[in-house]
Every structure is written in structure tokens, then in C-alpha cells.
């Protein structure tokens, strides 16, 4: 880790009319750090994520990103072309529903290769071998490369989506409930895989989840949101073992014990 953050959010707010989406969010994210944003549904997690990933324009506040050349850029002042380029090279976005993040009607190989072709790779052989390599890393067999994601199970689709996002070697990945809707054994393997990839590649990630177990496994730092505001923030273990805000205490004590 370096001394300088990778991503910096300053008093970010988003209002839907008079309703609050999220309000006055401020934090820094360092390279290689995984930050979990937790809270119940309707607490503004996804609004915050969409604002940070420029899929949504905030009402006020700024978000800055340190580019590969070390310069800081204000995300909301970048041109759309630059933003979209950033999103498909240096960033990744893993949707809760893999169908939103994948092209369901083209093969798995093309799904992984699309980002490469978008940045100008024009050699079929290279694209294909990179795709095979990435499918292997996310535990999808090479023989499935020409199958469409429609023929994949939920867990496989999610892994394919992750491969598609990571193929250009991004530095920052946004994840929206990456394990939502998967059964527990599949969830466990996916988390294992994600943890491995994040450590191996030194990715920074912002993971939005309502599942505290996912947050504990993946993240180093945690932000608890309620009604659009951050109620508590700190190291994941500290927040979960010694919750201070009343709402966090409620949240932690609500975890079902098996």
C-alpha cells in the first residue's frame, strides 16, 4: 500500500426530489483495500455505489480518482468518453444480477474478450487464449468457452461476470451484492475465489452487501449506513466485534445463528 489514496469521496449527496438517497458521505480508499458498505435495504448503499461509479450523477459533492499516471481527476468533471474508457479499463463493476453485466446472447469467450476488443486488441488468437486463461482462473472449464451464459448456472454466470471485469487488469472494482441469490456453498466458493483474486491482483474494491458475513470475509474496512447516512465506520473486525452505534449493535445482533 502506498501513502496516497486511490479514490476519494468528499461529502457526496444524492437526493431524489426531497427524498434522501445518500447524504454527506466522505471517505478515502487506498490501493489494495477492500471496503464493505453494509446496511439494510433502502439505506442508500446502491445509490452511493452508483454515484461513485458514475452511473448516477450526485446532487452535490465530489469523487476523485487517482489515474495510473498519478494525477487526480474529478469524476464528475470528466468527459463522458473518458469516463466510459475508465470504466472499461481501470474499473470493474460486478452487478448483483449477472444478466445485467453480461451479454447473454454471445459466448462466454466473447464476453471476456469484449473489453480487450474495446481497447483495440485485434488478434483473435490472443483474445481467445486470454479468455481461456481467465475462465480457468474463475474455475470455468475451457470446454464452456463457446457456450452462451444463458446455459450457465447462477454461480457460473457470476464468476464469468467477474472474469469479464478483471480481464483488463482494473485497479478498482465495484461490487453490488456479488453473492446475492446464490446458495451458501456456491457463495462460499465465490467468496474464496474473490478473496484470492483480490489479494493476488492487489485490487481495491468497494463491496455493497447486506450480508455481514460477506463483509467480514472480504473486507478490511467497513461502513455502516442507515437512512442514507454513515452511522459507523472502522475496521471490519472492530465494527463487528465491538459495534458502537446503536443501529450497528442491532444489525450485528440480528445475524441468525445456526
Amino acid at each position, binding site marked *: 500500500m502506498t501513502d496516497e489514496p486511490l479514490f476519494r469521496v468528499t461529502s457526496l449527496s444524492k437526493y431524489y426530489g426531497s427524498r434522501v438517497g445518500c447524504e454527506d458521505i466522505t471517505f478515502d480508499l487506498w490501493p489494495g483495500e477492500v471496503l464493505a458498505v453494509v446496511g439494510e435495504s433502502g439505506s442508500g448503499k446502491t445509490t452511493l455505489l452508483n454515484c461513485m461509479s458514475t452511473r448516477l450523477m450526485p446532487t452535490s459533492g465530489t469523487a476523485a480518482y487517482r489515474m495510473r499516471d498519478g494525477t487526480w481527476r474529478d469524476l464528475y468533471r470528466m468527459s*463522458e468518453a473518458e469516463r466510459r474508457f475508465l470504466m472499461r479499463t481501470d474499473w470493474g463493476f460486478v452487478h448483483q444480477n449477472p444478466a445485467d453485466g453480461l451479454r447473454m446472447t454471445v459466448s462466454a469467450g*466473447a464476453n471476456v474478450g469484449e473489453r480487450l476488443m474495446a481497447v483495440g486488441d*485485434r488478434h*483473435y488468437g490472443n483474445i481467445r487464449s486470454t479468455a481461456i486463461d481467465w475462465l480457468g482462473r474463475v474455475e470455468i472449464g475451457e470446454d464452456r468457452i463457446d457456450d452462451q451464459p444463458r446455459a450457465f448456472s447462477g454461480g457460473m454466470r457470476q464468476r464469468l461476470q467477474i472474469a469479464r471485469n478483471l480481464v483488463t487488469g482494473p485497479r478498482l472494482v465495484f461490487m453490488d451484492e456479488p453473492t446475492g441469490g446464490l446458495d451458501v456453498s456456491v457463495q462460499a466458493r465465490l467468496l474464496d475465489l474473490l478473496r484470492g483474486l483480490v489479494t493476488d491482483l492487489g485490487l481495491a474494491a468497494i463491496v455493497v452487501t447486506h450480508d455481514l458475513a460477506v463483509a467480514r470475509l472480504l473486507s478490511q474496512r467497513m461502513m455502516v449506513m442507515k437512512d442514507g447516512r454513515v452511522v459507523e465506520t472502522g475496521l471490519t473486525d472492530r465494527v463487528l466485534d465491538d459495534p458502537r452505534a446503536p443501529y450497528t449493535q442491532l444489525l450485528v445482533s440480528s445475524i441468525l445463528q445456526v
Partner: protein
Amino acid sequence: MNIQATDIATYNFAYLDEQTKRMIRRAILKGIAIPGYQVPFASREMPMPYGWGTGGVQVTASIIGPDDILKVIDQGADDTTNAVSIRAFFKKVADVAVTTETEKATIIQTRHRIPEAPLHAGQVLVYQVPIPEPLRFLEPRETETRKMHALEEYGLMHVKLYEDIARHGHIATTYAYPVKVEGRYVMDPSPTPKFDNPKMNMSPALQLFGAGREKRIYAVPPFTKVVSLDFEDHPFEIQKFDQPCALCGAEQVYLDEVILDDKGGHMFVCSDTDHCEKRREDGHRGHMAPENESRASPSSSAGPSPRKDGEEEAPTLTPPSPRPLRGEGKGEGQHQTFEKSREAE
């Protein structure tokens, strides 16, 4: 515009009213200024169904003048339903000379072929386009595809070619093969066979594309670079035929397969009927050409049927009725101005 006081309904020269033609010409000029860019235009209802060339007919109607000579082809042939009706339409509403000879035509409206004979400067090729958006089947949202064109995000186009190779081992797209125009816009060359793609590159003729249902016009000005997309290790290739035309013996031309009977009999003949007939008049013979024919007239009824000879004389036909009204004053003036600007191209 002076309308004669008659009981029968009449219409303007070349069917469309002058304001509509102005609007379409404006779209055409914009299209020429930005090669390959799809210009939206207010497409009109035409007296034919969508899919029959309403876009091409509107473009032709907007650029045609009384001195133009029109040729219409449908899949290369001058004698199929679509070509015959559109030719008859303009003969009737614009009283223009028509021809089937590529060489003599000033405007060639085409459905899915580029003539084999090289085009020359001053000619205009008008394409009928069903779906102008090359990215459509990969990205259904129009807002998104327009953004992709604007930002030059064409990675998706290669995804389609990748899929072809992954599935078939080679690029299996044979028509509507995507091209990049002048290094900027990716364009659908309408469903012409990819055999014709190289002819679009640096063509001396002006190429205009009209999509009536989708309400788009785009253009490739003369001498513009048109490059077919491909991969470094799977370069673009045109179709190859392992036998020459059965009627005229031509090689290196695009051939149609014609079924002769229900016992598997078939022949390959030139898709460009004008080219084929010219060659036979020059004495070229394919292996299935009739022995004793003197002029273009293959005896086989299953082969491409010959044109009625009457059509050749079309330029001297008597004026059709109802008599088309010629625009006067302002309208006429605009028309001539446009003609001049087109000749200057």
C-alpha cells in the same frame, strides 16, 4: 406551386413535394459531410410497403432531375419485381429516361448489389437499407448505439466477428459486413454481399443509403476509404466461386445459384444481369449458354429471364398519364441548384 384545375389527383415531379425533397436533400448533404454517419430524417409514407425500398425511393426522388437516366436493380437483376416496379414508378412520376445499362445510368438505385461494371465519376448509387444500425443486433438500445458511434466505441462490432470465428472457424458474415468509413464511423453497407465491399472503397461514384422505416440516411462520398473490419489473424476475404457463370463464363463476379428442376439440377449465373448480357453480346459463352441465341435471351425459363425489349426504348416512351406536374419557380430553382452541386461532387 400551381396546381391545374383538374378533377384527377395529381402529384409533384418525382412524387414527393418540394419541401420534403429539400428536407431529404439536407439530410443527404449532411450525410455526405460526415461520411458513414446516420442522419435522421422525416421519412414519408410511400406508395409501397416498408421493406420494399421506401428509403431508396425517397432518396432517388429527391435527387432525380428531368435529365437523369435511372437504372434500378434488385439483387443485381434489372428484371425482378422490385426493380421493375420502382423503374416504372419513376418513369411515371418523373418522366425520366430509364436504362438497364450500368454505363449509361446517372442514378442507380440498388437493392443489395453493386454492379460489376466499374462506376464512374458523376454516377450516384442509391442503396435501399432495411436496418442501418450495424450494432443493432448486439445492442438493442438506440440511445446506447448512438452514444457508441459518438464515442467511437466499436469493440462490440468485433465481438460479432469473434463469435463467427468461435462458431464457424472463420468469419461467417457474408452480407451486411460491417465497414469503417474514412477511419471514423462503422457503417452497415446494407445487405450487399461482402463480395461488393471492396468496390465501395475509393469509388468514384457517390453512394447514398436510405432506410425508410428506420428513418435514416447516410452516405459515402466519392473517393472515400471504406475498410472492412477484421482480425489480424483472420483477415477479411470476399466470397470465391469455384466455377464461372454458366451463361457468360465470367469469373471474379458474384454468382446466383438457380435451381433448374426438382432433381438437383442447378446452375450458377451472374447476379448482375446487365453485366451478363453485355458479355454474351460480346460473344462470351458459358457451358450452359444456349447454342443459337443471338441476343440476350437464355432459352432456359429457369435462368434469369430476359428483359422485355420495350424497356430499352423507355427513354422515348410517350409521357405517362396522369401527367406529372413540374415544380415551378422556387421549387424548380432549388432542384437545379442541387443538380449542379451533385455534379460538382
